[in-house]
């Protein structure tokens, strides 16, 4: 295992300290329990939004704390949901009296820990709602499973709900917008290489020099099938198919296309992927009117990418375009 770390036990704390120091104009970090909030939190009268989950997915979520997006983020241990304490502490720190929305990726651990924290916050008189994101079409959604995972589409939920909260929507409205985005976004990923969790020291799985893993999650959990390496265009078609068929997206739809790097894939490759994905959508009459290409929801140093497609309407487009000022996403101010 070759990593730029000191003690594996200190990865999250040291990284958080570096992040907070590099972005002290935007955020403030608290330790023990660990959380990050906007430098000027709480904002009186504004609905606050927090998200969180295991670390190792940076910039998710702390990189999205700031004006127009999240009010706080709660980083757990690497790939491990945070416990209720820091979630509660962050909820208290951001509450401006208008309620707090928890955006939670659908993993058993995240859901349970956020639930407990929400119960504790409610007991202290804070109104809390939760939206559980589950955009990953690689996983069968059924009553008999833990359901779909929340993956890169979560970033779009956070941005758009964040814009709604920033313009002054109330808790019901912000929650509804977040649910709408989650309902209209679908994602799927692929890995060319595994990742190594610092405390494990071993790759999450092994892939031969000519193999890739289709339907990969963002924790190095194995995907739905393993195939031989293909040209980028063929891989794009392979994962775009299930995404488009799911809702389904249809000719005439306007969409946002997110090409998300898993952490170890260079930008030059992500743009090759973007080119063909946009081309394939266009051939189906689906118009890409907004796009985002980069490393936004990662799995440490994993090589690979995911595609997310979000159906846009005028309101979502306007909220997407609204100013945002965070470490990882910034425009308009």
């Amino acid at each position, binding site marked *: 295992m070759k990593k730029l770390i000191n003690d594996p036990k200190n990865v999250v704390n040291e990284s958080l300290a570096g992040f907070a120091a590099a972005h002290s104009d935007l955020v403030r970090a608290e330790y023990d329990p660990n959380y990050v909030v906007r430098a000027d939190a709480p904002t009186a009268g504004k609905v606050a939004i927090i998200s969180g989950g*295991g670390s190792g997915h940076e910039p998710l979520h702390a990189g999205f704390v700031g004006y127009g997006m999240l009010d706080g983020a709660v980083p*757990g*241990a*690497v*790939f491990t949901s945070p*416990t209720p304490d820091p979630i509660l502490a962050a909820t208290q720190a951001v509450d401006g009296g208008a309620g707090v929305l928890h955006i939670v990726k659908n993993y058993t651990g995240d859901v349970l820990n956020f639930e407990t924290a929400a119960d504790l916050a409610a007991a202290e008189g804070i109104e809390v709602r939760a939206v559980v994101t589950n955009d990953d079409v690689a996983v069968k959604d059924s009553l008999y*499973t833990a359901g779909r995972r929340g993956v890169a589409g979560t970033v779009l939920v956070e941005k758009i709900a964040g814009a709604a909260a920033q313009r002054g929507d109330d808790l019901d409205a912000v929650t509804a917008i977040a649910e709408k985005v989650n309902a209209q976004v679908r994602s799927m990923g692929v890995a060319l290489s595994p990742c190594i*969790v610092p405390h494990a020291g071993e790759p999450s799985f092994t892939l031969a020099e000519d193999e890739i893993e289709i339907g990969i999650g963002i924790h190095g959990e*194995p995907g*739905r099938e393993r195939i031989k390496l293909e040209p980028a265009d063929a891989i794009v078609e392979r994962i775009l198919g299930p995404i488009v068929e799911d809702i389904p997206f249809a000719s005439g739809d306007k969409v946002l296309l997110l090409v998300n790097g898993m952490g170890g894939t260079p930008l030059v490759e992500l743009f090759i992927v973007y080119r063909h994905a946009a081309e394939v959508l266009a051939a189906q009459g689906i118009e890409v009117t907004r796009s985002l290409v980069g490393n936004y929801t990662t799995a440490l140093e994993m090589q690979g990418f995911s595609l997310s497609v979000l159906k846009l309407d005028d309101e979502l487009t306007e909220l997407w375009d609204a100013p945002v000022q965070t470490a990882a996403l910034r425009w308009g101010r």
Partner: protein
Amino acid sequence: MALGLSWTLDWIRRSGAVIADKRVELITLDRAIGDGDHGENMDRGFQAVVPKLAMLDDDATPGDALKLVATTLISTVGGAAGPLFGTAYLKAAIAVGSAPELDGAAVVALLTAARDGIVLRGKAEVGDKTMIDAWTPAVDAAVAAEASGASEAEILAAAAEAAAAGAVATEPLVAHKGRASYLGERAIGHRDPGAQSTAYLLQAAADAAQAA
């Protein structure tokens, strides 16, 4: 011989030792069908629990110790295992109330409440390839042993043995809960890490009773 605070403390200390010992094994199980952190999570939790035992008063009850485990696991483990085991110990603590000593019926109540707490939070059934596949056979075995007049140590030994068998029995299953459920057929052939850690924790309980 009814089991008191010293058994409870011994159980918890033995739990910390066995989890530390099996940390890598549990990580490896979780790497195969999960995200490779179960051993790390459980170890972080029990390493936090053990030093806190010194804070308990001399007249503390087994329930007090179980509650300390519950709150510490909830606030240090995270992931799925944190809330699930945390709830288990919390419900177990409530079940044994303030009794200074636990007889066979109390031991069965403890195990049953723990299992029920996990089901309440996680909604898993037997056969879903989760820790419930170790807990439920353990509870069943404990009930049967108690009914046949076994001692507390014998009840726990029966529970531990059933949990271990239950963990092994998760291997051929497809998972319906937790991360392994994402894998479909590919989970077949791998043992559920939470069922395995459950088996180790119950073995620690039995060993502590044996030594009591």
